[in-house]
């Protein structure tokens, strides 16, 4: 019998991944590293600023993707981004930035565990709406705290990061993105990757196979929110000023989601590529129209869902399965 033949055949063991998959990532970071030193001419300052916000967008998208890998499609990213921003605004007044930054992120991470715990059994649109509602609750609370605490609806001044030195801020953002990418790669190479993927593709089956779903879902929340909050710190420290309406806006939850989906879900490079393309597109459009430049996110999201299910990464790796980093 032919199947009996199969039974005796042995498998060629393939490595989980090869170092070659790291080359595009290396290229991305190489380019990002030399960018400030390029002869950018008279608009150098403006371009460096766009590059800075591109890095922040990439941090947010990649951190959102890490949570999505565990099947939790969140609309609460703005909440953790905002908690990072507000945490830094308040803590930065009483301690040096390098202490305020991780502490603000830690607080956001811990708050995310609360959200994670109560939404454990929710999925799909219920999960999306619950996370959206959570963001609004956080925003309303911050907005209604006494003005002396968090500035109320008017907002809050933020201590400038690194004395407002644009180039230093850029490299700090570069460092945070590099850290985020390393975390993402570390997850990809660890048991977390298998747990996340299993939960996403069949939660009950994962449990039958012994995956401690609660623990891994919460871990995804913590890691994702911690990193998102670091992005929030960078944003707040760059703009000197934050207010609840903009910081916790739905747009800040949708942008990372769109960026990841457009770039390529569940990959490290995809969200970073997506951020680069979308940020540049947004900026170009912003230069010609004052309002509504976020239209690119709506358009890109629709077109991606209808015609590009695996995003940019799907274009780059047409027809290949698995082994993506």
């Amino acid at each position, binding site marked *: 019998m032919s199947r009996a033949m*199969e*039974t005796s055949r042995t*498998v060629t063991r393939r490595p989980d991944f090869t170092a070659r998959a790291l080359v595009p990532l290396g290229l991305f970071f190489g380019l990002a590293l030399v960018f400030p030193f390029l002869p950018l001419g008279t608009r150098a300052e403006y371009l460096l600023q766009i590059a800075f916000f591109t890095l922040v967008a990439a941090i947010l998208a990649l951190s959102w993707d890490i949570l999505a890998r565990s099947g939790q499609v969140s609309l609460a990213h703005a909440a953790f981004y905002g908690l990072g921003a507000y945490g830094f605004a308040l803590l930065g007044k009483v301690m040096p930035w390098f202490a305020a930054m991780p502490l603000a992120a830690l607080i956001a991470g811990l708050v995310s565990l609360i959200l994670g715990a109560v939404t454990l059994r929710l999925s799909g649109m219920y999960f999306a709406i619950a996370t959206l509602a959570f963001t609004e609750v956080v925003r309303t609370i911050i907005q209604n705290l006494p003005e002396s605490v968090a500035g109320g609806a008017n907002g809050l001044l933020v201590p400038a990061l690194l004395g407002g030195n644009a180039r230093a801020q850029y490299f700090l953002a570069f460092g945070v993105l590099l850290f985020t990418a390393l975390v993402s790669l570390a997850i990809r190479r660890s048991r977390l990757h298998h747990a996340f*993927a299993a939960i996403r*593709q069949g939660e*009950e089956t*994962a*449990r039958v*196979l012994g*995956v401690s779903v609660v623990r891994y879902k919460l871990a995804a929340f913590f890691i994702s929110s911690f990193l998102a909050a670091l992005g929030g710190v960078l944003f707040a420290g760059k703009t000197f000023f934050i207010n609840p309406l903009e910081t916790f806006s739905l747009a800040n939850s949708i942008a990372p989601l769109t960026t990841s989906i457009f770039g390529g879900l569940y990959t490290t490079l995809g969200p970073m590529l997506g951020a680069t393309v979308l940020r540049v597109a947004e900026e170009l459009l912003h230069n010609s129209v004052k309002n509504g430049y976020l239209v690119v996110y709506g358009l890109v999201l629709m077109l991606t869902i209808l015609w590009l299910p695996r995003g940019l990464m799907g274009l780059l790796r047409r027809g290949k399965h698995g082994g993506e980093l």
Partner: protein
Amino acid sequence: MTAVSFQPSVASQQEVVLRADGLSKRFGGLLAVQNVTFTQYSGEILAVIGPNGAGKTTLLNLLSGVYRPTAGRLHLLGRDVTGESMEARCHAGLGRAFQIVRPFPEMTVHENVTVGALFGKAGVSLPEARERAYDLLERTGLAAHAEKAAHELTLLQDKRLEVARALATQPRVLLLDEVMAGLRPAEAQEAVQLVRSVQGSGVSVLFIEHIMPVVRDLADRVVVMDQGQVLAEGTYREVTANPQVVAAYLGTEEGLHA
């Protein structure tokens, strides 16, 4: 806890691996499983049969922890697991393959099995899990398909994957929910061999089955259920000779196609 678990397992054949004491499950007004008691010994293949709606799948869901019983206790390897989660039961040595195959669709066949190997028992490293998964694919005849996407498999291959993945968790007891369903006779024969080889590796098997020849070929002992209750228990020959069992089957349209 029972005395059984404290006895040294002199005769491993007599070690109790699974014991249900009066398991019941009520859904609203419906008593789907009622006071079910049975014992499974180490190395044994136990079949649960019964007409449609007899409560077999509900029983399996009670055993694997999908449902909590309304009453009764469940012991696995001498340990009371009645209140424990699915993942805890898996760690304690209970594996399960589903009737409707549930591969992780975006993973390769090998990755599917790796998940079972990695999380089924504490302290398995990722390289070990990957290696064990490859071994299992060889044992279950899936070696040639290791790097395929799970959704590219045929039904029989999917069932093999389902079993391989459950075995990867290193169970002492494996629950199989109608693995033969939808297979052609030749394929079913291969599946029977697969279950035999599972038993050969020291795993006790509890399976639900509709196809009586398969039950006859595989089962050491048979538990017959009807209307949520245990109707009879014994060897295949004994239960099929039991007039109550025959009556229960005749009462339905299927009859005993033995």
